[in-house]
């Protein structure tokens, strides 16, 4: 089926099979491999992307459903500098080891910080509850998000 959408601000026209999910479309057709595929049934959060401004599981959305939508992946967020401070905090606090969950973590964390300027640790954990990390034990990830939140609040006039 023909689809037409925007990915990271660029218009994309493609012809896809209905069974193709958005995660595979991004990875296989557009070579945007920052979106990771873990469980393929919505549990692990590694494939989190933004569709029309809202975070979603790209493994639970069909590519054909994104016809006319605007999709942002970790590549878009990273290149625009939107999450540069968050990425730096993740590095500083060792909030990643293997890095497989990191794109999804950054997506979810950034989503939280745009909704709420300074969430407490409990709120951060709640918002990330749908993202698995098998390396860090989450403590360092929560630290990094907390640090970023404080930094963003301070830098606001």
């Amino acid at each position, binding site marked *: 089926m023909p689809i037409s959408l925007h990915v990271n601000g660029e218009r994309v026209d493609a012809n896809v099979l209905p069974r193709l999910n958005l995660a595979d479309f991004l990875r296989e057709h557009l070579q945007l491999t920052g979106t990771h595929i873990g469980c393929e049934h919505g549990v692990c959060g590694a494939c989190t992307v933004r569709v029309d401004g809202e975070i979603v599981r790209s493994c639970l959305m069909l590519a*054909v459903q994104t016809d006319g939508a605007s999709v942002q992946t970790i590549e878009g967020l990273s290149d625009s500098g939107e999450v540069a401070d968050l990425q730096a905090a993740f590095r500083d606090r060792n909030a990643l080891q293997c890095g497989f969950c990191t794109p999804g973590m950054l997506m979810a964390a950034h989503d939280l910080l745009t909704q709420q300027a300074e969430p407490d640790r409990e709120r951060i954990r*709640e918002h990330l509850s749908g993202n698995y990390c098998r390396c860090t034990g989450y403590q360092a990830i929560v630290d990094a998000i907390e640090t970023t939140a404080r930094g963003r609040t301070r830098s606001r006039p």
Partner: protein
Amino acid sequence: MKASAFAYARATSVVNALELLEAHGDRAKVLSGGQSLMPAMNLRLISPELIVDIGEIAELRGISVSRDVLAIGALTRHADLLKSPEIAAHAPLLTEAIAHVAHPAIRNRGTIGGSLAHADPASELPACMVALNATVVIRGQRGERRIAAEAFFTGIYETVLSARELVVGVELPVARKSAAHFFHEFCRRHGDYAITGLAAQAIVESGVFMDLRMAFFAVGDRPVLAKVAARLLNLPMTPAILADASAALADELNPYEDQQASAAMRRHLAKVLLARSTSALLGRPDLGNGGSV
């Protein structure tokens, strides 16, 4: 895994969706938010020949209040329910419960109609609909059916809905001023499926239950509206009455066993919830352990 191949049709209206469902029957599956359907397809638990995507049918989305009825369109997403001032004002139980439905990225896509039609016995919304005495509005080519939520669910992933019908919305009575609600679920991790949960709505006057609807979930093949609630009505609550009710609840429930919990553990947790909810709804901290559990 990946879903097996299927044909895809994007319905342009309810009428169009019903035409497609009439023509393809149980070879077709309705795609709403996809947050339960897509996992089932990716795991190849189901392999429909045709997906009827109703996601673009604007008439099925939205929340409205008229007089004493709160109407919610089937395609209203969990995230919309959570943010809605109408829901917070007229069905606060729902606002509280939604925060426990999966995770933010899933709540952004999942819909109330999809959750009800999917009818997972461990999920929150079916139990809330039963507690709130909701009516499920179903449409087929031969017309509309209105079914009480209590009668809508018939088993694990089973409802009265036929393959040729569509849930178009739910209607809830607007909460009365003297209404109180309680929601709690036990789970391993925030957003996971409940091990045992309770959604309850009550009318409390002068510290006495005038009405009480307790819908337990993840303790049976569908949400269970506890008959035992009738024992708690119209009388001043005492620990002895609560203890009797607690024993009766354990008899009434017939929970399943799975890798998360044994039937005995689920029974125990249901009794804990009965005591806690009674205590919270009546504002009686002394009853919190009152089920002598």
